């Protein structure tokens, strides 16, 4: 049994930041609690103090369009809030699609965006999506505020770039323009399992040519990854299905993967080649590719 600890319930962000600034990594913020409470249950994490953010929700859960046409997502918006928000449906369909298959509605009702970043588990669905959207995460501490690009956020198992004294306040998504995007979640065992692979792919087009491409993979290694070679192969081009197949095959072959209990490295590489091809065919409006190649 874990030892006793205290729960503090700050009434303002400043008060929360002061509580987090004790130089003690076992002083942690808790919001939905769906991640942290399990780590405590398993004995992986024994807090000295939990800083409950429950009184801060009213000021940190807004979802709104920013003056530049981007979207600002409050860190304490629940995943269900985001899934149900018209702004997300309209401007960030990729995020909405990914949330629809994230765990179950019971989890999405409790889990919040900030926690879905700070938890830092490599098999989450949100990280590759945030990478593909060029998300910028705003954090604050008593030392000041800073912005961490989603791409620099995830550092390994339960490890993120958020320092012990920092709190995630919001996520900013820059304007995406006219684009097509998809999230493919591949599970190794049951349909509602954690992903063994998550693919977030997005292309913005300008006059028939691809002006911007983003492709990010989650759940393969200890952190999500962008695929810059795939992105540059797509950018400025107008590929057909044969080229897409080659791009996906080359990308899969270049990945540095390792064997895992549910999937060998070779199997993971095969799955990436198949599903990356299908994801790209889908967003390039070349069919979904499911008639070709193995399921």
């Amino acid at each position: 049994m874990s030892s006793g600890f205290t729960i503090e319930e700050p009434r303002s962000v400043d008060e929360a930041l002061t509580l987090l600034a004790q130089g003690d990594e076992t002083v942690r913020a808790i919001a939905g609690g769906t991640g942290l409470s399990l780590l405590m249950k398993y004995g992986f994490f024994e807090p000295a103090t939990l800083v409950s953010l429950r009184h801060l929700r009213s000021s940190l859960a807004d979802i709104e369009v920013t003056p530049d046409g981007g979207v600002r997502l409050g860190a304490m918006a629940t995943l269900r809030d985001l899934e149900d928000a018209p702004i997300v449906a309209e401007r960030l369909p990729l995020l909405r699609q990914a949330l629809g298959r994230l765990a179950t509605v019971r989890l999405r009702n409790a889990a919040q965006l900030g926690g879905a970043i700070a938890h830092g588990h490599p098999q989450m669905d949100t990280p590759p999506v945030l990478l593909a959207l060029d998300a910028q995460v705003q954090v604050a501490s008593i030392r000041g505020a800073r912005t961490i690009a989603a791409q620099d956020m995830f550092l390994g198992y339960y490890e993120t770039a958020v320092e012990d004294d920092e709190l995630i306040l919001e996520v900013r998504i820059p304007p995406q323009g006219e684009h097509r995007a998809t999230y493919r979640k591949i599970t190794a065992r049951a349909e509602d399992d954690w992903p063994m692979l998550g693919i977030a792919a997005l292309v913005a087009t300008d006059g028939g040519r691809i002006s911007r491409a983003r492709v990010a993979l989650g759940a393969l290694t200890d952190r999500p990854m962008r695929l810059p070679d795939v992105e540059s192969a797509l950018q400025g081009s107008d590929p057909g299905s044969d080229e897409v197949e080659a791009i996906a095959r080359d990308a899969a072959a270049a990945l540095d993967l390792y064997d895992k209990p549910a999937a060998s490295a070779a199997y993971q590489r095969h799955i990436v080649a198949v599903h990356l091809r299908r994801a790209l065919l889908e967003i390039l409006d070349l069919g979904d590719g499911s008639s070709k190649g193995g399921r």
Partner: protein
Amino acid sequence: MTDHDATPDLTGPDLSESYALSINGRDREVADAWLGESLLYVLRERLGLPGSKNACEQGECGSCSVMMDGLLVNSCCVLAADAVDADVRTVEGLAPDGTLTDVQQAFLDAGAVQCGFCIPGLIVSVHDLLDRAPQPDELEVREAISGNLCRCTGYGRILQAVQDVAAARTAADAQEDRP
């Protein structure tokens, strides 16, 4: 709240924390508790409410489903001490003692109950669904109960029971609307 940079505590866990929860409309005191206990544990082991079931303990199976401030959650993944001020509704609070809700009765009538372990969680989930979507299509029903795992694989009759309740409620509403 205590100061934790004092001398090391060699007497074991500090179990002296007390707080109050609102369960099914009643204030309930939780005394001498470890603050890391889940809402599920407190409901079952401290407050005498064993209707919410404990199976996976990690948010996968839905057996512990409860309503918290009007939202369906897994009570195994919520810290009880962080649910202070929340309006918690459990399966025990759905109908007065000795009576059944229409959803519970429909489950019985449809033969949807096999071993029964998953049923309280399913009942709470189905009430939540029908409150939000009185006439759900099959996909909505499946989405709502995904995350309520039945290992007797009795989903067919469960789906039937949900449609039966939705139809009965719609018929009752139509009756009421008649001049």
